[in-house]
């Protein structure tokens, strides 16, 4: 299955044009408005216990021109739609940031800017995805690259024809774009995938020659994984049958990063089937690791935000149902500390690559799920 339906550029152009036409007709004799599927949030997502996926309960919202609360977003959506059509027509792409800058200007009469911050245009682009039922890459809008892949894996760009081996590109590996539908996995020589939260650890492991010594593919999301990274993880698991292990900080943010890779995010819940990897396993850092690996002296005190987030996680159905995870979260609250991946360097720089990871990965059945 693919992330997007195979729709042609023409089809995208038609969808945008129909969208605009209906609105124009509404102005002629009706109430100008458009409908869209409301973005996923805690209230309108559905947790599928069986599939262990977060799915979206499709609910329709609408934006009306004559509603003073909506008129700004309404107008912004038309702006983005117009730029998207132009991009697709001329077969060019623009990044999220570019879209923001290209469309930002001051509207006369009211003297306000079309967009104040990039957040605004990012959100409108997402709205348009849900309105037209496409992903932004189909509108030729791409996110900035974030995340990288390193290992003995050969990839090919179908559009351009290039091929490359991700272990031969230097210390940084290959920067994963936000959409990889045109990327083909040509060859692969590895036993498992290790997803690492922080770039610093990613580079540490490469320096220690971990991927070579353990026959692993390393991926970093550089924090919360982008769509491209998630998609890559999903494809490596389901197209190439590689087990996936996730290694993050021992704090609520790390736990959530793992959770999203595993079962999808609320925000992008309409894509969970394609982005999530339900049987990804969690390596660490766990609260037990603190004791196990003598890290008491290098823990960090939880701050108010952390505590608030821990409590939020404990309320998510997919955490609530897991005794193991509730145990971890309760331990965290009780001990009042968090532990970072880098804490392992307390013992030595190579500890994480030589001792910690190999030990943990040798007993995959003991890992958190």
């Amino acid at each position, binding site marked *: 299955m693919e992330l997007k339906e195979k729709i042609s550029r023409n089809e995208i152009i038609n969808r*945008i*044009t129909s*969208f*605009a*036409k209906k*609105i*124009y007709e509404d*102005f*002629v004799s009706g109430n*100008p408005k458009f409908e869209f599927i409301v973005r996923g949030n805690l209230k309108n997502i559905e947790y599928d216990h069986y599939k262990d996926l977060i799915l979206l309960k499709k609910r329709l919202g609408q934006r009306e*021109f*004559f509603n*003073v609360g909506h*008129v*700004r977003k*309404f*107008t912004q959506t*038309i*702006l983005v*739609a*117009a730029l998207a*059509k*132009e991009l697709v027509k001329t077969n060019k792409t623009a990044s999220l940031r570019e879209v923001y800058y290209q469309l930002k200007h001051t*509207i*006369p*009469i*009211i003297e*306000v800017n*079309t967009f104040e911050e990039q957040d605004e245009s990012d959100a409108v682009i997402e709205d348009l995805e849900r309105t037209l039922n496409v992903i932004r890459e189909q509108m030729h809008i791409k996110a900035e690259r974030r995340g990288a892949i390193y290992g003995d894996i050969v990839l090919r760009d179908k559009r351009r024809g290039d091929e490359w081996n991700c272990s031969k590109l230097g210390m940084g590996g290959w920067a994963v774009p936000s959409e990889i539908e045109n990327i083909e996995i040509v060859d692969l020589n590895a036993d498992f995938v290790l997803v690492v939260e922080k770039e610093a650890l990613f580079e540490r492991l490469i320096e220690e020659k971990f991927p070579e010594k353990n026959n692993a593919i390393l991926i970093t999301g550089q924090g919360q994984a982008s769509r491209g990274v998630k998609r890559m993880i999903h494809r490596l698991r389901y197209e190439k049958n590689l087990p996936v292990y996730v290694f993050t900080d021992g704090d609520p943010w790390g736990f959530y990063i793992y959770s999203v890779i595993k079962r999808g995010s609320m925000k992008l819940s309409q894509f969970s089937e394609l982005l999530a990897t339900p049987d990804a396993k969690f390596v660490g850092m766990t609260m037990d690791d603190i004791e196990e690996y003598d890290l008491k002296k290098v823990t960090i005190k939880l701050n108010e935000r952390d505590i608030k987030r821990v409590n939020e996680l404990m309320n998510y159905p997919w955490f609530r149902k897991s005794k193991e995870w509730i145990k971890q979260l309760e331990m965290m609250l009780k001990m009042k500390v968090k532990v970072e991946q880098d804490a392992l360097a307390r013992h030595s720089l190579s500890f994480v690559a030589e001792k910690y990871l190999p030990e943990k990965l040798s007993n995959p059945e003991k890992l958190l799920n």
Partner: protein
Amino acid sequence: MPTSKEIKEEIQLYETFKRVSIAEFFERNRHLLGFDNPKKSLLIAVKELVDNSLDACEEHQILPEIKIKIEKQEENIYKVSVEDNGPGIPYDLVPDIYGSFLFGSKFHRFISSRGKQGIGASAITLYSQLTTREPIEVITKVPNKDKAIKYKIKIDVKTNTPIIIEKKEIEIKKDHGTIVNAIILGQYTRGKQSIDEYIFLTALANPHATIQYLNPDGEKVIYKRIVDTIPKLYETKPHPHGIEIGVFERLLKESKEKTILSFLYKTFSSVSQETASKILKKAKIDENKDPKSLNDEEIIRLYRILQETKLRAIPKKYITTLGYETIKKSLDVMFNPDFSVAITRRPSVYRGIPFIVEVGIAYGGKISEFQLLRFANRVPLLYKAGECAITAAAKEINWKRYGFNAEEGYFPKDPIVVMIHVASVWLPFTSESKEAISPYPEIVNEIELAIKNALREVSLYVKKVKTLSNISNKYLSLFGYGLETAEYLSKILDTDSKEIEKVIIERIKKELKNDILEIIKSMRELKNLIKENKDKEAIKMLENMMKDLYDKDIISKNELYELIKQTIEDIKSKYTKILNE
């Protein structure tokens, strides 16, 4: 009906008065009468003279022209001068009025008009005598005499009789009227509870009078009359309840009736022959006795029983109200507000005695802050606000709920003037000085209801103003975003942006017409103007509310005018029932 406590107090005061000399009584009760301190004493003196003048004019249906002058003579010594165009005082009555105390005729409670709320002109004479040793000077002229008469009078404190220091005939320019001059100890200040404020409020409550005022700083202000109708005072037979015992005694002594029985049912309203008979039987007084022959003990006994007997209430027409149209006009002229409303409630009853509450509220315009103005029988109440029923009622209002800026338990910070007038034949005051109305629940509740009535209208107006200012913003927004939308839609649809712009602008104008309709629906003023075919005025009002739209060149003034005009025409032809909602 007065309470037994009130009856007891009344009798005690009377007995005390009968026993001690005037001077002693006055000294003992000075504070009760309002002569607390020099500042207040000056005010009371002016108040008494002005009230007398207004009363005199009203009784003779003359539109009052009153001139007040206060001159500083020395430190703390002021000359107070009040001149009126009243009927004048019969020359031989002047000494008694200004030179002797008649207990009860002007001391204690009201009977009907404001003057009887006062303390009596002779109190001023005595106060002047005691503080500056000066006599009171009275010049008066009646129409049927060629010359006026001028008196200088003092009081013989021991015998309670006038001492005529001077008396002579003089020529004056007036055909009729009275001038009173008194030199007294006082203190003039400005601001709250000052004479300036008092005169302003008196002018507000007496829009039929023209009042000129020259203050000690040499500043002159003229309050020109706003209406030409003089309030009609229905002279009525007094109702026995609330009449003071001194008045009762005087009525007995002056009565022309042969028997005490006929005195009772002929002198008073609400007393039938049968009731009079019953009362006399209870008082153990012979029905045929000559009223003039009753001794003190019998007077007191009869008075007490009269007060304690249940009687019919006074008919409502004897209550003098200002009228809501007059209140509104007066507020408009004196405060220059954006909006005003006034109501006169139907009579309510307290202890069997009817009273009427009138409320006038003025909002915005030249008003800068909240003011609560209290009036009892058209006399401004300046002191003891904390004790007053009016204040208590105003405090009960949840101002915030009406859309005003107020914290719980406090008056609002908005520019509102709330004028409350309580009128009755008899009002219970908290003390002898009659500065605050007793906050009995029936009275407080009625005032509260009255304020709420008026406040609803003000609240609606304020809300409308807020919505209206938003109308301009709403359409600026819509036109701004609309033009932007037009441009980008035309890019997607590959058509001429001007065409799409036209469509969008037309659609927005249609929406604007709907909103104009809504505004008219919600504003009584506009509905009335349209009903009266004053279309031009209505259009102007609406234009004013939306001038931001043509100021910023979004639509032309003409277009806006046409739009409004069309909407009004639509109402008249299609939606006529809106006008009557």
